[in-house]
């Protein structure tokens, strides 16, 4: 287990309009190296990611979400 290096990052996104965006974002972000798990909460437009920050940075995550077509900002909690 590489849990020692895993960071928990929360992104807040804009413009979720359909539950199908959830699968899309989860796939885009999940494909990144170092990402262990992604959970997208539709109702609150929140994306929770467990990832290895030394492999994939928070900026990479934001970029991946952007590739799926959504703007996201990292959030402290």
């Amino acid at each position, binding site marked *: 287990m590489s849990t020692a290096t895993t960071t928990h990052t929360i992104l807040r996104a804009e413009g979720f309009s359909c539950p199908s965006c959830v699968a899309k974002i989860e796939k885009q972000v999940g494909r990144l190296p170092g990402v262990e798990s992604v959970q997208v909460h539709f*109702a609150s437009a929140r994306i929770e990611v467990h990832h290895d920050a030394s492999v994939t940075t928070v900026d990479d995550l934001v970029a991946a979400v952007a590739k799926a077509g959504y703007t996201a900002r990292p959030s402290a909690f």
Partner: protein
Amino acid sequence: MNPVQKVVRGKWFIPGLSGLLILASLLVDRTIGGELTARWWIDAGAHATGSDVFTLADLLMLLAAVVAGHQIVVKAVNALLTRVIGIDLLVSVAAIGAVLIGNFWEAAAVTFLFAIGHALEAATLNKTRSALAELVAVAPDFAIVLRDGEQVEVPAGQVAMGEIVLVKNGAKVPVDGQVVAGTGAIDEASITGESIPVEKAKADQVFAGTVSRGGFLQVLATGIGADTTLARIIHRVEEAQDAKAKTQAFIDRFSAWYTPAVMVLAVVAGLISGDVVLALTLLVIGCPGALVISIPVAIVAGIGRAARNGILIKGGEFLETSARISAVAVDKTGTLTEGRPELTDVVVLAPGHDRASVLRWAAAAEAGSEHPLARPIIDAARAEGVATEGIPEGVTPVPGKGIVAEVEGRRVRIGNPPLLEEHGITEDNGAGRAATELAAVGRTPMIVAVDDTVIGLVAVADRIREDAPEMVRRLHEAGVDKVVMLTGDTRLVAEAIGGATGIDEIHASLLPEDKLDAVARLQRDGHTVAMVGDGVNDAPALATADIGVAMGAAGSAVAVETADIALMGDNLLKLPEAISLARRTARVMRQNIAIALITVVVLLAGVFAGGVTMSIGMLVHEVSVLVVIVNAMRLLRNQTRPTVPGRPAARRYRPRRAWHAGSPVPDGDSAPAPRRAPRAVRSSARR
């Protein structure tokens, strides 16, 4: 992102471009209408464009359909890959079908309307999330920390526990903490929903995300980052918004079957009638969009609205249950009353004594007692300057009756009438009658006897909160049948308070497990019960009730996490507000389901009766989705009668004592008196 990219990425770009192409196509059709190439599509009879040529107008229309439709197709394919048959697939099949039969206008109209509907949906849905966004936005960005005697500005998340943070006038409090020096007024609206600034002084608690309205505070950080009350509130609200209500789960199951059923229906209808357009139209109008969105949108709006007013609701399910509340059980102490007894009466019964001497003897004896009723007597004696120095000798508590103490060589007894009986004092100077009278008005009397002579009485009472009667009245107004008081106090005291507040039913002299029984009995009578309590001795009853409500939860992490509804402030009127908001939310959910179902039924009937084309179906359908969202957005509006005074009054600076859950009863020098004035101000501002 440069401006061009911004526009292209924006949610309005695709529907906008598609719309322009449709307009251009219509214009070209009117003005030029020229041939472009020979006709190449499948002939579908009367539904085709009717001309035998593929015009420039057709090309533009096709382009419009491709621009608006390609995203939908991509989404549909993505969804299919994750084995979800959704609305996108229905629209894609319909649009592609329309193109294949040469019905470019229908294809363009359907995809355009769908795209614009989605953009509108996204915009309005964001709006319903705005309540939460506001909460997130109050999260402070930076903090001024005192390090080695110097002021250092750091990001709010980098403050360490135990550091001293400076809060200046107009600044946001960056951490949860305790004031160690300075005074200031703090606007806690973001946490408690109360917009009247609270005066903070040493030892008071402050919360991250609140705003200084004056003064200068030094705060010892006790909670940072995700460990602040604000972060917990945001988490709670988000979890609540994501948690599915029972109705929502039903809708999910329903739509999982519904969409494939619509496809089967369309295929069957197409095969039987041989009419491809009919089949495609059925696909479009069968989209469950409004139905799928009807519940979550109401829950998000309802929970968000509540949070903005300092009411945390655990989730959609609790929102639905709260809408059915028919009985409210309240714990007396701390809910209907201030939870802080004060001396109310001193009665002199023996010649040669006066108020001061009765109070002095009582206080002297009680100085050795830990009973909660001792504190108000000692405080009052100190305030009136009659307190004695030193401690009594030989203090003997008599459980349930009072105490006996040796003071200055004399035997002092203080307690209820049974205490005198036990000690064989029969000459009570009328103390028994006076005690009954005091108890009848809700006070707890204690007879004071010195050397076997009754010299007088002192009485202590917990003051009724000023807004308690108003709360009971508004609960009834919100549709609650029964408001029940549960208390461990004696019946006489309980009845006096019940009478003054308009409570429907009183259960007195209860032990914690009796409170649970009382709640369970209400449930057996068919009530949906909400229980309001402080979460400690009421815990069993709170757990049994359908909805457990914690008050003044801002200061208590446990309350925020455990209660089904947590009222962040200390305002009783938030409870009726929460219930009526829950009712309104439940009403909106039902309306939304009705709107969605009626739309589909009417459209279906329209298709079979003829007259409803694919694009009309799409239009009506998208309108129904928007109606559902706008309906939910009504919840975000303030109610006609807010529980906090209007803006002008709220902005005026009115200091009041801070209240904090879980803090010990304040000692003598911070007497509770200042709490009175602002309450009166608030209630008068409401009228």
